[in-house]
């Protein structure tokens, strides 16, 4: 089975439809599937729901799909860097579901692992707990009961992720903190497309050093990434 596609548009061919639910990797602008987001924009598909930790900035990442009003709902933990996002949210055009960051990551992991719900302490006693099933477990000191809330696994129609390298069978290697949500997001889609900086011949990756096995990856596309830096911080060399 051939997984390698010549470009992002062809990698998405036949997979997009209005109202679909997409899980996307990335943290801020780090490790985002920028080529696939561009191609989704060009496809004109609309009413999308995205599970993604952030919403990009106005002209990069998921932000470009907000400009074109292709997004109906975001499931995110932090959306602070995006003025157009705020405008659409405050005017009621865009729905927003805040998830604590670890809850969002675990919802993706759980969905990919076939676990429809799990209990977590995160958000107990806050607005995040509203309407959620609560249960106590004896996890405290000396078996004391503690409160937990149930969160649901994410089962997305499509997962789009960015990795550093792939082999032709879809085994993925990420680089530094660009791994972030890409690994859990990849697992929770019915179909997963990975865009990478380099596709290497099968057999050239060390099998012990593969971060995500190719079983999770259906399609692969190689391309050139802008990899924009959001906050450039440096120190001076001591003389």
């Amino acid at each position, binding site marked *: 089975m051939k997984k390698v596609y010549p470009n992002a548009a062809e990698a998405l061919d036949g997979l997009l439809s209005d109202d679909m639910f997409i899980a996307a990797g990335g*943290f*801020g*602008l*780090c*490790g985002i599937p920028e080529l696939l987001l561009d191609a989704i924009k060009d496809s004109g598909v609309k009413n999308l729901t995205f599970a993604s*930790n952030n919403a990009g900035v106005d002209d990069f990442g998921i932000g470009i799909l907000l400009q074109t009003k292709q997004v109906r709902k975001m499931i*995110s*933990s*932090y*959306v*602070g*860097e995006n003025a157009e996002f*705020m405008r659409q949210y405050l005017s009621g055009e865009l729905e927003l579901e*805040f998830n*604590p*960051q*670890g*809850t*969002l*990551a*675990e919802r*993706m*992991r759980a969905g990919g692992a076939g676990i429809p719900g799990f209990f*977590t*302490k*995160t*958000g*107990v*006693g*806050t*607005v*995040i707990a509203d309407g959620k099933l609560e249960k106590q477990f004896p996890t405290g000191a000396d078996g004391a009961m503690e409160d937990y809330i149930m969160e649901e696994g994410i089962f997305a129609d499509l997962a789009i992720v960015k990795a*550093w390298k792939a082999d032709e069978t879809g085994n993925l290697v*990420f*680089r*530094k*903190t*660009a*791994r*972030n*949500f*890409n*690994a*859990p997001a990849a697992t929770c889609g019915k179909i997963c497309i990975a865009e990478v900086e380099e596709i290497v011949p099968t057999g050239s990756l060390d099998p012990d050093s593969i*971060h995500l096995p190719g079983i999770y990856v259906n399609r692969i596309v190689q391309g050139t990434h802008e*990899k*924009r*830096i*959001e*906050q*450039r*911080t*440096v*120190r*001076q*060399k001591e003389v």
Partner: protein
Amino acid sequence: MAWDRNQMAARAAQELQDGWYVNLGIGIPTLVSNFIPEGVEVTLQSENGMLGMGPFPYEGEEDPDLINAGKQTITELPQTAYFDSAQSFAMIRGGKIAMAILGAMEVAENGDLANWMIPGKLVKGMGGAMDLVAGVGRVVVVMDHANKHGVSKVLKDCTLPLTGKGVVDRIITNLGVLDVVEGGLKIVELADGVSDEEFRAATEATLVD
């Protein structure tokens, strides 16, 4: 007289113990890494997927694939390990991180913490703050004692939506240090030149001995 930002960060650094894995929030907590005491080795966690966070890179050596949770470019150290977001929060929720040092908008005398949203204003999101306060061993808040209108941020009850309920262990402000104890807050230490009387007058929360 009171502590400035750096003095607050230096005081917070005294909370660190050798061998700990620690998560530092954005703002004054980030400055804590400049004051880690001699002989104390701590490993900094960045919740976007890294243990062993190094300093900012030299100009020209920034790597877009290497950022901290504040999206700033950083560097790695010899002991650095990378992992995905699910594993990052597994170690947070699983209690493997000994301490988080965080900023706050309000803290209440029962340990309630509010630091993520102001209703009616632009809402950015909680990021990883709710997971951190629910999961780490010890939560230390570093913040100004009063807001810019001079109103105490150390309260009987939080007025803002909570980040966590009963989660704060210790509060370090520009005026001193407080512990959350049975029945209220206990003064641990006063900042240089701050009198007991001034401290009490600036604090809304119940103070117990």
